[in-house]
């Protein structure tokens, strides 16, 4: 499946390519953009700006900062678990987060995992755009039936007595996992802690880095 779940298109030359090298998909997408632009519906420079935002500004560092703050500030953690939209907005470090963000906490008793079996719902504002595997058939099909097997694909083995809770994002609620703070990080700054928070640890398919795993 992975072989054709994304298109390894090597024509990375959208703006100055040669006609003969354009794939059918590129041609269709270009035709669509031209028509929508000529019809007056879209402004291509706004599309440039959207792409730039997702390539440079909106990524998992946003979520990592939130997690690190929750690890160091008990009042913030409480607020985050009560209403993540409101708590994240109160930080003011990023553009306002839209409605319906829900933070779910990992504990020694429970490990949380996020999936969208029906499409690709994902908390863009705090994690950026989802990776290909998150949107792929293997993940979407197995996460709700065999989450321990999926975790094994990521090299993670959960203790047998830990509950694994899978959250299927079937509505406009968006979930982010609050992973457990790694041992040996007492007294660390939020900034340093945020370096331990991986994207996958906030989806629930990974764990935060240990202090020994950082540079």
């Amino acid at each position, binding site marked *: *499946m992975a072989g054709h779940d994304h298109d390894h298109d090597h024509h990375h030359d*959208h703006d100055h390519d040669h006609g003969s090298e354009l794939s059918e998909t590129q041609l269709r997408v270009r035709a669509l953009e031209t028509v929508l632009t000529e019809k007056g*519906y879209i402004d291509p420079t706004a599309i440039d700006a*959207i792409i730039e935002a997702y390539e440079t500004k909106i990524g998992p560092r946003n979520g990592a900062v939130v997690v690190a703050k929750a690890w160091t500030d008990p009042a913030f953690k409480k607020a985050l678990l009560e209403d993540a939209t409101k708590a994240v907005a109160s930080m003011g470090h990023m553009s306002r987060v839209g409605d319906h963000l829900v933070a779910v906490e990992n504990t020694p008793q429970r490990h949380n995992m996020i999936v969208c079996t029906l499409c690709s719902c994902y908390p863009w504002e705090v994690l950026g755009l989802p990776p290909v595997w998150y949107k792929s058939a*293997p993940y979407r099909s197995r996460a709700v*039936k065999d989450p321990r097997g999926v975790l094994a694909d990521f090299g993670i083995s959960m203790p047998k007595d830990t509950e694994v809770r*899978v959250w299927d994002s079937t509505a406009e609620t968006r979930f982010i996992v609050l992973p457990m703070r790694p041992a040996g990080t007492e007294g660390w700054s939020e900034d340093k802690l945020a370096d331990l928070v991986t994207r996958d640890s906030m989806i629930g398919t990974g764990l935060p880095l240990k202090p020994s795993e950082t540079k």
Partner: protein
Amino acid sequence: MDGVHDMGGMDGFGKVEPEKDEPVFHAPWEGRVLGMQRAMGYAGAWHIDHSRFAQEKLPPTTYLGVSYYQRWALAMESNVTERGYATPEELKAGHALTPGKTLRRKLTPDVVQASLTRNSFYRQQQGPQRFKPGDRVRTKNIHPATHTRLPRYARGKLGVVELCHGCHMYPDSVATDRGDNPQWLYTVVFSSEELWGPDADPTIKISIDAFEPYLDPA
């Protein structure tokens, strides 16, 4: 609809294969597709559930055979033509042949930053909240031919309401142009045995977010 997009619990798709140092986009056209989708949504041309429904209506072999952003592009072409924003002839020609329709607004670079914040899906409640956390519910065994957000694997199953998220616009209604039709939204949690039978791992719990019309008291 009972489409191939409703993948929860299907077997045979193989291992999950994370890609190391994955780029945000694998080709520039992917970014154009995402950007166009956002711009048309901002303009009010269609709703996110129209996009989902258009993808669900792709033939199963197409849905599985193309890449993620190719699917988006195909769905966008459907919404553009079926909702009258352009004709198939124009898409084929790669140029507008007639002037466009009037849309609510246009996404310009100065408002891109603000547009990246998610819209609220909360809507004014139309009736009392029927369930509360702790209530036992059974999901309905329904098979609408149109868009729904109740996955097949969780139909006709016994669960417990865990959270109430307020009243939200109802995708089943929005996707078929029947208005927001706001409904209460709940997180409903199921045991793995309830969903997958007596041999399932009892340490696994699965939840969906279910709109009130999907639920009966149990």
